[in-house]
């Protein structure tokens, strides 16, 4: 009863919602780049939102299923084939013992693959999330490699009804060429002139090519600083936008260090992080829009609430269950 990795790229890893409570010891939380897709994929296969999944980027993934189960592919940049036949994404796809799943990369972006019951690996500091830089989490602290085997957990008892479950189109994020991303400005605004802040919020940026799970460098207008960008190191959140002394902004992401020493002009709001993360390097135009905390929280709550109620189970599954009960 295992899943076997036949082929993978260097940026594939096992992630859960992250390692909480060790940032004061210098351990970053890690976790998925795109939390929306991550939660959606778990919900589609009938899991709670936080079970471990595979995260992939840029390179194809091929695996063999030595068990029955359900899988859902969410996010950007990949297609899903079962035994050579194309399957829908953002949908729970059932597989049987011996089936091959192939996920070719079709563009940049991050995708996640959830399994009913979740990926099971030993927890390190309370989490299965891989943080390869420190060799913790995942399988032996490493990103996925061809030949890796893992088991999945016991699926929830109603998991069978989720075969074919999908997200309605209106709940699937639309990845546009030009996006608006909300930021809460601060906390180090004293480092930036008004002109600098207005440059940041009135011009467009693109993600640079040398971006990874740690963070995205942004190309666009450099932001002049009133003094050197070095601050005394302090805690760092996902989405924090640091500006180095050269004036180049960088968004800190899942594998950011737990602390940082550069001035921060703002923080991307939780509801918009998944969209920012899915930007195509060098292409997607990003416009940062200042938002106040209350508005940001309202938007995030609405997004999560909508997602939690969005999964649609095929009527047929429920009818079958009902007629089964009559037998």
């Amino acid at each position, binding site marked *: 009863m295992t899943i076997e990795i036949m082929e993978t790229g260097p940026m594939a890893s096992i992630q859960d919602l992250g390692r909480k409570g060790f940032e004061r*010891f210098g*351990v970053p939380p890690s976790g998925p780049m795109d939390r929306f897709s991550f939660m959606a994929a778990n919900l589609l296969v009938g899991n709670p939102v936080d079970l471990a999944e595979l995260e992939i980027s840029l390179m194809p993934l091929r695996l063999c299923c030595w068990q029955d189960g359900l899988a859902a592919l969410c996010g950007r940049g990949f297609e899903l084939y079962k035994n050579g036949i194309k399957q829908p994404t953002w949908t729970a796809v059932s597989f049987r013992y011996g089936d091959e799943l192939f996920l070719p990369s079709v563009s940049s972006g991050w995708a996640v693959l959830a399994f009913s019951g979740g990926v099971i690996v030993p927890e390190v500091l309370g989490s299965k999330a891989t943080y390869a830089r420190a060799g913790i989490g995942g399988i032996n602290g490493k990103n996925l490699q061809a030949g890796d085997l893992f088991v999945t957990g016991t699926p929830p008892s109603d998991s069978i009804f989720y075969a074919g479950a999908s997200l309605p189109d209106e709940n699937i994020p639309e990845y546009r060429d030009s996006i608006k991303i909300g930021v*809460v400005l*601060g*906390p180090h605004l004293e480092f930036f002139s008004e002109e600098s802040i207005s440059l940041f919020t009135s011009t467009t940026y693109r993600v640079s090519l040398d971006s990874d799970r740690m963070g995205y460098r942004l190309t666009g207008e450099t932001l002049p600083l009133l003094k050197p960008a070095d601050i005394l*190191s302090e805690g760092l*959140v996902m989405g924090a936008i640091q500006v180095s002394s050269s004036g180049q902004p960088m968004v800190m992401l899942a594998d950011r260090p737990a602390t940082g020493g550069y001035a921060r002009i703002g923080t991307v709001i939780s509801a918009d992080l998944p969209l920012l993360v899915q930007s195509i390097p060098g292409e997607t135009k990003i416009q940062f829009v200042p938002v106040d*905390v209350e508005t940001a929280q309202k938007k995030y709550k609405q997004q999560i609430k909508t997602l939690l109620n969005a999964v649609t189970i095929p009527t047929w599954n429920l009818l079958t269950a009902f007629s089964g009960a009559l037998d």
Partner: protein
Amino acid sequence: MNPIINTHQIHPVGDSAVLIQLGDQIDLEINSLVHALAQVLMKNAPQGMGEAVPAYTTVLLHYDPLCLSYSMVKSWIDDCYLRLTKNTNRKENLIKIPTVYGERFGPDLEDVARLNNLTVSEVIRLHSAVEYPVYMMGFTPGFPYLGGMDTRLSTPRLETPRKAVRAGSVGIAGSQTGIYSITSPGGWRIIGCTPLVLFDPQRETPFLINPGDRLRFIPISAQEAGL
């Protein structure tokens, strides 16, 4: 009324954290207050309150915006601040770091001596003579940011960082000293090495050092270290 109550500033950091600022320069008293506040913030915290991350002069407090609003978090911080007045003394937890200085354990020891016009034994004596407060942790898991190094030991980083510095290496960078907690690339001048393991996720206590502790380096021979 405690005068410190007027000195904390709260800034939102996105929609799921706040930064509490208690000062703006490296200072042992301010830092002691930081650690005391971080502990109070995590004690009996309401549901949805996350980790408090202490640094030199700030505490970053995470929270879940699905449970708590920014104003609820602010009033929790103010409550905690009031409870702080009694016990702001630094926890006096001293950790001894047995260290083998020089030779293959500290390949840059002679350079540090030469660049500062000191002898090798003077460098060892100065480096092991004081207790270093752990102001904060970060950079890599289990890495302590230490204060209080003798300024006569200040040495610039290597021009070309090493591709891998072994965990346990004791180094100097500018006016700071530190210990590599995991093997990682780095440009610190390595003067010695400790056999202690700062970070072992499989150990019951994964971290040897806690933020707020004090460290002292104890010179030992390679034989004593079992190296």
